[in-house]
């Protein structure tokens, strides 16, 4: 039987995605966990991984101008679409120096291609790190993107590919993916090829707005969707609107969880919600997990 893949997303940040993933990882029997929120990963704060393997992630390029070779012709500035060439003029208003702004440089290499003096080199960027770790819930593949880096989608793909290889090697049945917020490249990279997506929504105007966008994204990629409404009692009217919307699009409402201070308290103690004592939320989360398992099994 092939490995199944479940991704947990939200559209809006802060709805409780990672808290739920931590619980699911402990409830799943045979799992490889992939933290694809490579920008601001949090799962490690609950799972406390021991890193077994650490790899550097290289992606993208930045241009660098050699001042010795530069003829100050300014062609690079003309061809650059990203406003990354900085021109310094001397007292007479003539070009004195050209440098690249590494923050805006896209790494496209057009300046290097056309520089008549071959004065520009494209340098490969170390954009982050990724790790394979052991945790009390199973193997965790995670990463940290360097500050200000782009190409987070590529790093997500690296995490997913590694998780797939590990799942096949160790004969695990499920890859559980903690997705990033939003709908952009890293979310797309987390979603594609998954068997089921769980969206964690909150009942606020922003929450329903963002849920709709991320649901459309799932439809775009033909991924079956389930929804959990977290903190539903904060706004019953919008909770109902979300339920109506979920029904309208043919997705499944898996549960409504009430607002619970345990979400933060368990996190503060470094525990998952099902480990944190005396809370009914843990029981409700187990029921959500059972429903998800049924959905995954029914997918051939």
């Amino acid at each position, binding site marked *: 039987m092939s490995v199944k893949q479940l991704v947990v997303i*939200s*559209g*809006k*940040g*802060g*709805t409780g995605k*990672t808290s739920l993933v931590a619980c699911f990882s402990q409830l799943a029997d045979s799992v490889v966990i992939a933290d694809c929120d490579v*920008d*601001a990963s*949090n799962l490690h*704060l609950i799972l406390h991984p021991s890193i077994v393997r650490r790899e550097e992630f290289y992606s993208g*390029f930045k241009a660098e101008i050699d001042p010795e070779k530069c003829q100050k012709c300014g062609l690079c500035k003309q*061809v650059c*679409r*990203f406003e990354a060439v900085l021109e310094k003029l001397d007292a007479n208003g003539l070009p004195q120096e050209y440098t690249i702004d590494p*923050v*805006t440089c*896209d*790494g*496209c*290499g*057009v300046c290097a*291609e*056309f520089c008549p003096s071959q004065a520009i080199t494209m340098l490969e960027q170390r954009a982050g790190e990724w790790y394979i770790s052991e945790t009390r819930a199973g193997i965790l593949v995670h990463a940290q*993107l360097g*500050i*200000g*880096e*782009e190409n*987070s*989608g590529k790093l997500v793909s690296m995490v997913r590919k590694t998780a797939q290889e590990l799942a096949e090697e160790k004969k695990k049945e499920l890859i559980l993916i903690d997705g990033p*917020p*939003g*709908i*952009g*490249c890293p*979310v*797309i990279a987390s979603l594609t090829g998954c068997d089921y997506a769980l969206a964690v929504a*909150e*009942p*606020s*105007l*922003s*929450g329903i*707005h*963002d849920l709709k*966008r991320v649901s*459309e*994204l799932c439809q*775009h990629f033909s991924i079956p969707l389930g929804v959990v409404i977290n*903190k539903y009692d*904060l*706004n019953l009217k*919008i909770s109902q609107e979300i339920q109506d919307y979920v029904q309208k699009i043919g997705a499944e409402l898996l549960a409504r969880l009430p*607002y619970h201070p345990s979400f*933060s*308290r368990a*996190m*503060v103690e*470094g525990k998952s919600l099902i480990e944190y004592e005396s809370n009914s939320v843990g029981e409700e989360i187990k029921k959500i997990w059972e429903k998800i398992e049924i959905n995954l099994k029914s997918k051939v």
Partner: protein
Amino acid sequence: MKIAVASGKGGTGKTLVATSLALALERAVLVDCDVEEPNAQLLVNPEWKETKAVELLYPEVDLAKCTFCRECQRVCRFGAIVVLLDKVMTFYELCHSCGGCALVCPMKAIKEVKKKVGEIRAGKRDGIVLYEGRLDIGQPMPSPVIKEVKRKASREQIPIILDAPPGSSCPVIHTLKGADFALLVTEPTPFGLNDLKLAVGVARQLGILCGIIINRVGIGDDRVHNYCREQGLEILLEIPEDRKIAEGYSRGLTLSEVYPEYKERFLEVYQKIVQKVERNVSQAVSGN
């Protein structure tokens, strides 16, 4: 004065703070740079005035002129153009719109055509102007839309408040670039602290002054307070955990619409920011 409101972690209250600050100032420009999930409009409720598409240029190959020399493929660093025996494939979702392929083609067989990736809307509510960037669903790259919404907003003279996306990567950098101050919103939990450190890293990398707002004080512990003290970061405002605020936010209410005293508190925050920025500028001028 340009103030960016960022956080690292999603869901800490960035948009709530950005909109509350703008409304307290009464005359301000609010720029929603969270183009993947733009929510400021839900709290500001502006009267929309105009909408404009954000378009990027993508290559289109004229096969009649193409000699299949593969120069375009060689130049492209993103794998977005692939030359086969009798046709040329383009992968728009990978294209960065750098124009390299069109420039390098020896037969001038590549034209660049516009394709929509998102849109910018502008609206008003009393003295607040809201510029919103919105990425089309399925489009992978938010940065071009962020740059465009900032460009449109930059023509304004009154204080500009930028609502940043969550995270610490490229879209956040593009939002923060050029700001005078970064107001970082966090929550007093391990997730909040972890992501705050990333956000502080971004601000420092860009050389932007920052100050902290701690939201939902009471749900966690004091690790964020300790971190701020160690790092010399001033906590400009603390907002307690309060169900009324959460419920109000869910209905689209800003802080001062739930508790009117927040208007004054945000004006104080603004004054402190202005002082810090002015002091920083005068220090730089005097060579400190």
